[in-house]
């Protein structure tokens, strides 16, 4: 036990002294701070005079002018400035196709040069069809596109109604048939924007991923170093291979726990001094970042997930002979951990879909997939999130992960003791199976 502690202390000190450790430790609170600030940046981006919209109208009914008028009604949420800047409305006779081509080309060029953001084209006889319209842009913004659609519909409806000679005043018909605006909120009565959840999910998953890969490869390197320097010969004459492996894994785990502890301390500090720091704890971002279930799930899955993968890294370190050789074994880790990110949009649409649920219980995927699910679901839970269904699921997944890790340590220790003394040829799978059986 004393020797395990000696190894643990050395491994811990080796990591904590490294620059990468210090950088990661500082970078993360910075990322979290960015997470609080960035949504505000999104909001302020609208301000600068509004997005430039050019309208090219080839109809003769004044649709372009009417649309421009309608669009001026929009203002940004934060500053009340106009959301759109009309950069010009150009009306052309339908027959002037040479002029159309020339002007359109110059407007397209303006979009390329980012002087204009949107070009709305109104083709001849627009009211006769629903598709005689075109939006040209290089940056799709669903919100703006929906606004254009809405207002164009209104302008065209007015023209159609006037042409149809109905008995009622056109204005009152328009007022009676005006479009509704549907706001959404979750069962808790709050509305945390999808972007916030996605962004929070990405940050948590990315942190787990980076920590596991960075510390895991460091662990693998340190095994390879001892193996290639032959220090391992002396080590195994002083301690058991299990003590060596456990000391390394736990030492590295302790260093990553230190990191999380620092982050949580920073988080608590922000919570305690939120008033003087000007942080709004009720903002959607803060509600996600400080949700107790999310914080707990992140910490536990991070630590246990790290242990789970470190066993794999220790195993690889013991059977390969060089850093270069070990790189071939990195991709399964990257793949398993990044799957939740790859399918993040599917996960946010239905975090309880069967296949997503299944993945969140399988140990290789659990550390990131379960955390992503928790981030998406926990903020919507009414009452204490720690007592909810998702908390129970996370607990079960965590227990599976812990049991698998224990089994993996037991198996790997047997390979490790043989592997670290093997130089040269890399063992084949049947050979490794034999080591496990005969150890």
């Amino acid at each position, binding site marked *: 036990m*004393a*020797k395990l502690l*000696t*190894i643990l202390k*050395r491994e811990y000190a*080796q990591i904590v002294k490294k620059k990468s450790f210090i950088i990661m430790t500082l970078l993360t609170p910075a990322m979290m701070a960015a997470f609080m600030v960035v949504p505000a940046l999104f909001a302020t981006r609208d301000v600068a005079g509004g997005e430039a919209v050019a309208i090219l109208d080839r109809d003769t009914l004044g649709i372009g002018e009417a649309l421009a008028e309608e669009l001026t009604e929009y203002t940004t949420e934060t500053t009340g400035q106009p959301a759109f800047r009309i950069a010009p409305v150009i009306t052309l006779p339908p027959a002037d196709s040479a002029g159309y081509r020339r002007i359109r080309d110059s407007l397209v060029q303006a979009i390329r040069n980012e002087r204009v953001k949107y070009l709305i084209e109104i083709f001849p006889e627009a009211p006769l069809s629903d598709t005689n319209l075109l939006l040209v842009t290089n940056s799709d913004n669903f919100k703006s596109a929906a606004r254009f659609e809405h207002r164009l519909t209104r302008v065209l409806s007015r023209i159609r109604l006037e042409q149809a000679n109905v008995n009622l005043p056109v204005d009152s018909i328009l007022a009676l048939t005006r479009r509704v605006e549907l706001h959404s909120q979750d069962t808790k009565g709050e509305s945390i924007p999808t972007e916030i959840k996605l962004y929070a999910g990405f940050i948590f998953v990315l942190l787990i991923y980076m920590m596991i890969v960075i510390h895991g490869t460091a662990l693998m390197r340190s095994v390879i*170093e*001892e193996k*290639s*320097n*032959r*220090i391992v*010969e*002396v*080590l*195994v*004459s*002083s*301690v*058991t291979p299990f003590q060596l492996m456990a000391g390394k894994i736990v030492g590295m785990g302790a260093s990553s726990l230190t990191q999380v502890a620092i982050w949580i301390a920073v988080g608590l500090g922000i919570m305690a001094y939120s008033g003087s720091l000007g942080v709004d704890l009720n903002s959607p971002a803060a509600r996600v970042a400080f949700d107790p279930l999310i914080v707990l799930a992140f910490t536990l899955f991070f630590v246990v997930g790290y242990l789970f993968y470190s066993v794999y890294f220790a195993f690889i370190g013991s059977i390969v002979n060089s850093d270069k050789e070990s790189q071939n074994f990195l991709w399964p880790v990257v793949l398993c951990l990044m799957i939740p990110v790859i399918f993040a949009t599917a996960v946010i649409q239905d975090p309880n879909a069967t296949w997503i649920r299944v993945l969140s219980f399988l140990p290789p995927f659990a550390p990131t997939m379960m955390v992503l699910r928790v981030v998406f679901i926990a903020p919507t839970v009414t009452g204490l999130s720690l007592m909810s269904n998702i908390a129970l699921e996370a607990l079960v997944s965590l227990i599976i992960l812990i049991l698998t890790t224990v089994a993996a340590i037991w198996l790997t220790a047997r390979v490790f003791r043989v592997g670290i*003394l093997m130089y040269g040829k890399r063992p084949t799978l049947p050979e490794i199976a034999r080591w496990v059986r005969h150890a």
Partner: protein
Amino acid sequence: MHLRLENVTKRFDGRVAVDRLSLEVPPGVIFGVIGPNGAGKTTTIRMILNIIAPDEGQVYFNDRPVDGSFRDRVGYLPEERGLYKKMTLREVIVYMAELKGYPRRRAEAELGAWLERMELASYLDRKVEELSKGMAQKLQFVTTILHKPEFVILDELFSGLDPLNVELIKNILLELKRSGTTILFSTHVMEQAEKLCDHICMISHGKKVLDGTISDIKSRFGHNSVRINFAGDASFIRSLPGVRAMTEFTNYVELDLDGTVTPPSLLREIAGRVEISRFEVMEPSLYDIFIDLARVDPSEVRPAGGRSDG
């Protein structure tokens, strides 16, 4: 500590690395295990250290089967050297001592004197990677013995050391021996073993070829070769009883005796018949003995060479 190996066998993938090896290392001696590369020395050492388990047979320390409890009382310098490059000398020495269960404070208190003696004192807080190969070797030697082991295993200790350092370390070994430490010294350089060891065990192809004290071995294998410088016709010598072979050179002959005749009686036999200017009983080096023995099937020489308790 008293080490005993009984019929120890180790196979790797069907290849026999160590074959029914038995030997006994009495306390307080410098015991040489010699043999060419690939003879099974390192595998034997690893079994002694309980790093790997023998397939058959048993290793005993003080008549108890070897287990982890002996770890702290043994010091091991492996053939392939290496230390943590990024640690300072102080850190490495203390760390290695702690892994042997030696108190940190005592290690810190004692390391200065050792580094002084090894002429490494000025590097105390420098990193291992700054050392030259020979310096690193001396440092590793310090980490091997600092925790005052009762039994020290040194695998190819002198490889890569210059003569001055060889002398330095040899003196330390003799001191250790005087203080009662048992030293197991493995090498493929026979001359070193010959100069340093009290007791020798030769291994070839995983089998013991011979073991015994140096004087024992020499007396057993030493007196079968004679060189005579003379004037006159010596062709009669070839047919004398006890002479197995004679090689003639311009001024002398070399006789290979079969053991039925002693050199003094041979001298008397030929003294009156030719004019002898020199008569020399040649003591073969361990190297000669080894070459001689290893060339034949070890199982054949086994009964002749050393104890055959297996």
